[in-house]
């Protein structure tokens, strides 16, 4: 057993330890908190690199996969074992999570420097990191579920970090409840899986539930409607992913989660937690792909994967349209995240694990970059988040501008240089070859167009034109050069915040290299075929058509966006949006997120409130009534007892004593103290005695 596999548990344990130590320390130990958190992530990163190296050095057929399990708990006669697994999927996720996490932790030191709950923030961040890393290394669905719940909990805690803001508290609650609905599916799937296969371990030397024998068993059985058991369980687990990754219809919590601090949005709601859903689907991919008919291009097509693809495609286009009409800088990015998650799911469905995971990795980097950049912008604009009140920031925050631009181009999928192009293209390429339908491909293309458009819109409104952040009274004509105090002006962020941005930007560009068709390193790595890998530029030519088409789409989107928002700048903050002026009805629909929140409020929330009222009623009157009944019965019984005790027992006793005393009183009259009375009595007794004797004799 390689030592790194045995000690893989250290990677999530270190942040957990850091969280524990931070939790018991008092407020002013900021340096300690930050140092512990960042240090634990750095150590985790080093260990992840070791793990990654271990998986690289593998020679043999199939992917490297080593597990380590131990018996944990015994119930009945069975032992339940848990453990962790090291395979390419795990390794790549470990590296990404620890690296991006470390950078975001460093960024947070600067961002949260003025917040008085610094310690609590790092405590939760470290706890989150340990949970996420636990999800990644888990070889056992139970351990995964536990870590999944930790992640959900810390997400709640961090979204509601500024809990005195009612909107933040409400958003945290909404996130938790919505993901909980998804987690119900995960739990049911987990239980069913255990019932079917008798083990929760994914890979267990042939006995695991993702391995051939278990899968064969599940494929052979069907339930209602002819659906295979593996499909049913896979869909239940997918439900958990839908909640966590914000797919339609459980996407409503993600935009509201922007109430949390920006590093939280970057870490949790861009790079890692929401990616956990995608990771989960990738983990149970063998289950979802089981029982597929023989396919072309090596990509299996099953009912489960088809559903995953459709959900992803719908989410992608749905969120992209909403993002067009948003005015909060973080909301735009949030809807963009939802849309990209949809792409990832679609990628998993049409192209397999490698396709979806590649986009996940690249997205993590450039979305974290974008969020952190927006954090820098918000920080520089003195906590202003409305894009209508920004503008012309490229003058004031040049570094931020450059890195943000890199991130934006990566997200939009600007051809050739940026990683987003390559990863999104992989997805579209496989979607175009999908045997079931071509509609997801068209939806994906349209989504890419919208993505480019809204990102350009955002860039234009934020960085170009004139700064609109002053008061309305002071006209923007002589705004920034006049007597306005410079403290209102936006400023560049300190180095502790910009350096991570620069690092992330570098990766946003460079990561594209590992996934081009010319050298599909990522795909080969995940499938364990690294040995036969060579750089083949000819492959580029084969997919040139699609590359050209997507390049065209992206450039179109950017051009339209630039024309509408870059060149023709809006003058004031209160001016109507261009699109709003053109199509007010559609704009209103998009701005209000298709009124889905209102729909949920009217139906699900009202039903939930009614159910809660019903339970309260039952509790108060039925169960409470039973308790009251018992209480009254007891009180009545005790009252009866007291009555009996006082009147019957006491009274009887008293009466007895009284009668004895009365009798005594009567008898004491015999003691009159007068001799003659005594004599009389003696006479009577004498007579009686003699009569008795005589009669006795006679008888």
């Amino acid at each position, binding site marked *: 057993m390689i030592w790194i596999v045995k000690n893989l548990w250290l990677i999530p344990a270190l942040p957990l330890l850091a969280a524990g130590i931070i939790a018991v320390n008092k407020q002013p130990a900021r340096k300690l908190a930050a140092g512990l958190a960042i240090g634990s992530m750095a150590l985790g990163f080093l260990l992840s690199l070791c793990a990654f190296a271990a998986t690289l050095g593998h020679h043999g057929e199939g992917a490297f996969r080593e597990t380590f399990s131990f018996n944990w708990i015994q119930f009945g006669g069975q032992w339940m074992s848990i453990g962790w697994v090291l395979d390419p999927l795990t390794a790549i996720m470990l590296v990404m999570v620890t690296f991006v996490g470390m950078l975001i932790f460093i960024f947070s030191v600067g961002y949260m420097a003025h917040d008085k709950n610094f310690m609590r923030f790092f405590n939760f961040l470290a706890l989150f990191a340990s949970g996420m890393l636990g999800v990644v290394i888990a070889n056992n669905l139970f351990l995964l579920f536990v870590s999944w719940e930790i992640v959900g909990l810390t997400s709640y805690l961090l979204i509601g970090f500024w809990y005195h803001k009612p909107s933040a508290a409400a958003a945290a609650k909404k996130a938790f409840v919505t993901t909980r609905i998804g987690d119900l599916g995960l739990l049911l799937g987990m239980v069913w899986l255990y019932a079917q296969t008798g083990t929760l371990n994914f890979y267990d030397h042939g006995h695991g539930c993702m391995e051939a024998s278990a899968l064969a068993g599940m494929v052979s059985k069907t339930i209602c409607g002819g659906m295979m058991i593996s499909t049913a369980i896979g869909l239940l687990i997918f439900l958990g992913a839908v909640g966590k990754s914000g797919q339609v219809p459980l996407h409503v919590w993600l935009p509201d989660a922007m109430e949390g601090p920006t590093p939280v949005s970057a870490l949790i709601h861009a790079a890692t937690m929401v990616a956990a859903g995608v990771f989960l689907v990738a983990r149970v991919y063998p289950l979802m792909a089981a029982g597929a008919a023989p396919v072309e291009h090596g990509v299996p097509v099953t009912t489960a994967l088809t559903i995953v693809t459709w959900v992803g495609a719908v989410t992608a286009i749905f969120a992209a349209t909403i993002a067009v009409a948003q005015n909060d800088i973080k909301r735009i990015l949030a809807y963009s995240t939802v849309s990209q998650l949809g792409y990832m799911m679609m990628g998993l469905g049409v192209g397999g694990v490698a396709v979806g995971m590649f986009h996940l990795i690249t997205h993590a980097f450039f979305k974290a970059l974008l969020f952190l950049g927006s954090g820098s912008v918000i920080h520089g604009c003195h906590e202003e988040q409305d894009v209508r009140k920004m503008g012309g920031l490229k003058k004031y925050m040049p570094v931020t501008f450059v890195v943000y631009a890199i991130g934006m181009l990566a997200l939009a999928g600007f051809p050739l240089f940026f990683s987003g192009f390559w990863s999104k293209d992989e997805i579209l390429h496989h979607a175009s070859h999908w045997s079931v339908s071509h509609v997801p491909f068209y939806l994906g293309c349209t989504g890419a167009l919208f993505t480019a458009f809204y990102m350009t819109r955002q860039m234009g409104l934020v960085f170009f034109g004139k700064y609109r952040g002053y008061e309305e009274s002071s006209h923007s004509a002589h705004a920034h050069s006049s007597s306005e105090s410079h403290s209102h002006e936006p400023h560049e962020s300190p180095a502790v915040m910009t350096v991570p941005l620069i690092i992330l930007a570098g990766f946003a560009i460079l990561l594209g290299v590992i996934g081009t068709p010319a050298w599909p390193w990522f795909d080969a790595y995940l499938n364990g075929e690294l040995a036969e890998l060579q750089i083949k530029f000819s492959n580029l030519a084969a997919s040139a058509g699609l590359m050209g088409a997507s390049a065209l789409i992206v450039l179109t989107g950017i051009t339209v966006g630039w024309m509408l928002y870059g060149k023709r700048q809006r003058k004031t903050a209160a001016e109507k949006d261009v699109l709003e002026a053109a199509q007010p009805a559609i704009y209103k629909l998009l701005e209000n997120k298709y009124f889905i929140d209102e729909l949920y409020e009217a139906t699900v929330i009202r039903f939930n409130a009614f159910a809660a009222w019903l339970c309260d009623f039952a509790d108060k009157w039925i169960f409470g009534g039973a308790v009251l009944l018992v209480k009254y019965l007891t009180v009545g019984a005790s009252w009866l007892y007291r009555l009996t005790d006082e009147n019957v027992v006491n009274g009887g006793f008293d009466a007895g004593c009284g009668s004895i005393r009365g009798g005594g009183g009567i008898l004491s009259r015999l003691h009159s103290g007068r001799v003659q009375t005594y004599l009389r009595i003696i006479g*009577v007794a004498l*007579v009686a005695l003699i009569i008795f004797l005589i009669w006795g004799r006679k008888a």
Partner: protein
Amino acid sequence: MTLALIITALVTVLAAATVMSLRNLVHCALAMAVAFSGVAALYLQLNAEFVGFAEILVYVGAIAILIVFAILLTRSGETPEKSVLTSGWLAGVAVSAMVFTLLGWAVLTSSALPKEIATAPAAPVKNIGDALMGKFVLPLEIVGLVLTAAMIGAVIIALKEDKKDNPGGQP
């Protein structure tokens, strides 16, 4: 069943009745003496001469006089104005009536009484003396002791207390 017997009996009974019904105590004492005499006469008729004389000596000569002395010492010589009967006297009368009824009925209906009139026994004083000193010497001595004790006791009880010796009033 001689006439003498009946008359003596009647006198005795009448005297006894008188004793208990007179108001003046001295009269009662005198009637008591008469009753005692009647009893003595009965004894004489029953051939118990010694007992009869002893009766006169003891009862009439000593006890009756003693009672008169006591009457005089307790200043009860005058005829009382109030009732001489105690409270609840009717119960007492009833009880004594019951007693008499019982005894009389027993006497009249008993079959244990001898029906024969035996001949008059002789009871010379010599025999009585012999018996006293022979067979019944022990009771005689004990009676002597009892009389001594009674005498001493009576003296102690009736002794006038010296207030200086016994201020509490206890005898």
